[in-house]
């Protein structure tokens, strides 16, 4: 029995021993347009104390390699909450309109209407977002990803 446990410990990447430790945090802000003192429209972000349909939300993901070893093939996936329609994101984001099974950019994705015809996907069809970073995330490195949506 003791030997068996030892084998399992060898197979499972040990958390205590790992040098990799990537953290990911999610935050959501309400996007508002307000006029500044000179009357120009400014976009501000604030904590979403009151949120109603039609409000625009900004989703921010912060990642950080808090460990001592690099992390490669770094992919961040964010399922879109059902009550949020996608508006746009940084241009490196891939989107999915089928629950994350297939990925691409909006113009390349087609969706089938109830009448059987195919049409190009629209932002509100998006179900998932994904960022696949080409570079390895060095130890101590961090970054920020963001996208915008509107409350349906």
């Amino acid at each position, binding site marked *: 029995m003791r030997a068996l446990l030892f084998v399992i410990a060898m197979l499972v990447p040990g958390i205590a021993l790992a040098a990799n430790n990537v953290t990911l945090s999610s935050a959501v802000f309400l996007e508002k347009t307000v006029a500044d003192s000179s009357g120009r429209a400014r976009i501000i*972000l604030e904590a979403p104390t009151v949120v109603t349909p039609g409000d625009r939300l900004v989703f921010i993901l912060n990642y950080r390699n808090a460990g001592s070893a690099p992390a490669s093939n770094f992919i961040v996936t964010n399922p879109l909450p059902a009550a949020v329609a996608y508006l746009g994101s940084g241009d490196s984001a891939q989107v999915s309109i089928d629950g994350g099974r297939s990925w691409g950019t909006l113009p390349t994705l087609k969706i089938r209407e109830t009448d059987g015809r195919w049409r190009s996907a629209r*932002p*509100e069809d998006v179900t998932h977002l994904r960022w696949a970073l080409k570079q390895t995330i060095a130890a101590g490195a961090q970054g*920020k990803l*963001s996208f915008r949506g509107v409350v349906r």
Partner: protein
Amino acid sequence: MPSANSWSIKNVQLLHVIPLVIATATIGFSSSAHAAGTTAGTTISNTATATYTDTGGNPRSTNSNQVDIKVDELLDVTVAKADPGPVPVTPGSTNQVLSFTVTNTGNGSEAFNLTPTTAIGGDQFDPTTTSIVIDTNNNGVYDPGVDTVYTAGSNDLTLAPDQSKRVFVLSTIPGGGNDLDRGDLDLLAAARTGTGPAGTIFAGQGQGGGDAVVGTTGADGVDRGAYVVQSATMTFVKSATVLDPFGGSRSVPGSIVTYTLVATISGTGTLTNLAIGDTVPANTTYQPGTILFQGSAMSDAADADAAQFASNAVTVQLGTVAGGQTRTVTFKVRIN
């Protein structure tokens, strides 16, 4: 409303927070989305996942924290009159119906207070509202005894998001009006939670435990219906021509007098149970079988036709006559 999250950033300019380029995109909703939007009280939960390969070549993943945002209630309502035009009424009539459609364009179930206003400038009379009735059976028509009377607090007009309901306002029309007099009536529907300028917040009063927020309608709506009096009046002209036994027109014994009675009905309404009668003058004798009604011969007997001669008088039942029409009766007498 946020969950118990520690927000550290507030009122920060966008560019300081997001160095990434934010692509613009047109806003569009899929056809399945409700016009009123996400139901109040719905929680928007967001969690992201990172996957990567560690130095040993092993796949690893980590989840972000979960951010929960509760969708608050938007208070919005519209009122639209449902009659194609002013509703025709007669002076002094009761339970005259104006129809309106009230629609909850907010995203939560909401009760609406209904208030009629009749003191409006520019019209000729003020109807007196006697009750407001909700179209309980949704057939679009006022059904006395079937549709329920609106009573604030006990029989409210409560509408789900996107739901519409027909509402009937019943009024008494003042007597003595003139033809085509108009009486306006405004029906106001106001969210029970509260009204005010768009953006007004009623903390904690939204459906599902969030706040209630006044939307672009101000959380109230109003539209104007109107009654129009349709009445009719009758003018009555009697004339006579005389034919004497010698071919002249002198009134001498033996002369035949032809009386012509013309009833002219004017106005946009109708007159019902209209009858005209004329007693044969003294010193004359009615000439049997001489009644003409609209040019057609009538019998003297009390029978199926409209005219009769009885008790030395000619009587013609005109029945229901609409404004703009005339009725002509003639009969002859002989001077004794």
